[in-house]
């Protein structure tokens, strides 16, 4: 038997105080949470926590904040269900429960020495923001950084101020696209894959990290394979129903993988056969 962990902290929600909450875009809120009592936290970019609202239930949410920050944890949540709606209506001073961190996170060590291409769709930018923070604070470890980010409409673009400041950096390019827009949008309209071709990606020395709807990740991965990138250099973050986050409830199964503990990040060659199948 492997080393068994009786990690009770991971089974019972710990109390966290809401320090701040603000609306990023319509229906999408960012929460800053502090452990109560105060302890330090640490997570790897791409990892998630189970967020609990007293009596309402629990949902898996990836950390969207800076991994350097050890006093608070930041999450960006879209109000889509009963628990996330409740999470988005908390106020500073309220208490929420947290279990975690869970999951494997993005391959930041493997990407060292490479260019990094970050591709996000919609809310998929939230679990990738810690990657960008890490890449910027360890810029000498990586080559150039490219962020390709697509949303449905211009008013659904997250973290606009940060996107602008990232784009000003010499070592980083930010490319935006939307599915549809009014006449006041001067940027690109279309899917993220259209931006790959002219982004100056060197397919041989680039590691890609993609997060968004499955269909977007599928087209992105094949778009990159078409320009010569190896499937093993493309990483995607999967989403499935999750109850325990400990590999026991069975709900997050994706073929042979448990998304909660084997994922949520997978190299595309690990999951390519599953991407081709409907309803897996």
């Amino acid at each position, binding site marked *: 038997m492997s080393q*068994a962990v009786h990690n009770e902290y991971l089974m019972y929600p710990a109390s966290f105080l809401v320090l701040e909450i603000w609306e990023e875009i319509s229906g999408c809120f960012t929460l800053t949470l502090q452990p109560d009592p105060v302890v330090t936290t640490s997570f790897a970019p791409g990892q998630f926590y189970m967020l609990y609202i007293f*009596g309402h239930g629990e949902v898996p949410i990836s950390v969207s904040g800076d991994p350097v920050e050890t006093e608070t944890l930041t999450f960006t949540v879209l109000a889509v269900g009963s628990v996330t709606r409740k999470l988005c209506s908390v106020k500073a001073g309220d208490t929420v429960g947290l279990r975690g961190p869970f999951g494997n996170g993005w391959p930041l060590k493997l990407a060292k020495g490479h260019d990094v291409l970050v591709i996000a769709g919609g809310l998929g930018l939230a679990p990738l923001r810690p990657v960008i923070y890490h890449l910027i604070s360890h810029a000498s470890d990586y080559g150039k950084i490219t962020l390709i980010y697509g949303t449905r409409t211009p008013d659904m673009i997250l973290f606009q101020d940060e996107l602008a400041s990232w784009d000003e950096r010499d070592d980083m390019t930010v490319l935006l696209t939307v599915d549809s827009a009014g006449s006041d949008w001067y940027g690109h309209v279309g899917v993220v894959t259209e931006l790959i071709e002219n982004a100056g990606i060197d397919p041989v020395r680039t590691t890609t990290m993609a997060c968004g709807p499955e269909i977007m990740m599928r087209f992105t991965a094949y778009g990159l394979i078409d320009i010569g990138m190896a499937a093993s250099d493309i990483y995607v973050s999967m989403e499935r129903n999750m109850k325990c986050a400990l590999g026991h409830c*069975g709900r997050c199964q994706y073929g042979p993988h448990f998304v909660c503990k084997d994922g949520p990040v997978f190299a595309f060659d690990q999951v390519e056969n599953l991407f081709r199948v*409907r*309803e*897996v």
Partner: protein
Amino acid sequence: MTPPRPLYRLDRNDFGILLNILKEKGYLTVGPTRRDGAILYGALESVDDLPIGWTDEQEAGTYRLKCRDDDALFGYNVGPHSWKKYLFPSKTKLWSATKKGSGFEIDRETDTPPKYAFIGVRACELHAIQIQDKVFMGGTYQDPVHAGRRRDCLIIAVNCAQAANTCFCTSMQTGPKVDNGYDIVLTEIIDKARHYFVIEAGSDRGAAIVKKLPVSPVQQTDMDAAAACVENAEKQMGRKVDMTDIKDILTRNYDNKRWAELEKKCLACGNCTMACPTCFCSNVEDITDLGAEHAERWRSWGSCFTMDFSYIHGGSVRPSIGSRYRQWLMHKLATWLDQFGTSGCVGCGRCITWCPVGIDLTEEVKAICDNEEGDPSG
């Protein structure tokens, strides 16, 4: 490997002594009882609680009890219950919480299970228990409920002397002979003159119990009779299925037409997952009282056949029933191997018997193997 321990004879009339010893040692004795027209696991107060003189007839979608023409204690095969009902209870409170100021305080629930002695565990079921051990205790996180219940659990196994029409343990190499993981194993022998058990300890705990029993040395004829019982079960095995390369075959048949046929047949009732001794998926529910002062978290058996099982915002990942059956079968026979290094099927046949429309796993496997449609390259 456990070194071989001596075999003994235990007279049928002394079987009650075994139960008494277990009770004296503080065990809650549970095993097969006749209830609601089926053989179900429940508390055994005395030998008379066993389904003496009963047997079962099983077919796809059919289960009937029948009287035997002898007084066998274990003359039947597995019923709808499995031992997971004790080791992985169908409903467990994980914790409760009370509102305190703007926050809450968690009261950890401590599972205080009785010390179980399982009487009459079959070879396939013992394999199922060991498979769930891997699921709940073999990884990074241990499930405290399963681990706590398993720790002191004593296993008195029984070799099958007959097989149901839905049995296929020989195909899964899990029986009918009990091979490991038991504390005591029994073979029930009834001939014209005698009714007795060949009894063997499989652990020190088991040996200490056997020592207290009025056993007599075993003769070669007894050993031959015990071997004949198992051979008889092997011969009666109602179903056979070729599991060679099953993982690879299924993995390249995600698009097989058979799944669409199952879509029409399967009711998605989840019976197979409830009856299956290895199915471990669960649901977690948070509830509160009306005043929202007290909250609880409950875990209950879940089934991959429900829409809710794979629900994420926007809908279920597996809206079609065919895809849910595929998930179940793929998991049992293919992905389970990746996850836990063992098949998730023990060949007990419960999913066949208890399917209300008689869907037969062995038939489905054969149909897919005989009509491969996927791209063989994967």
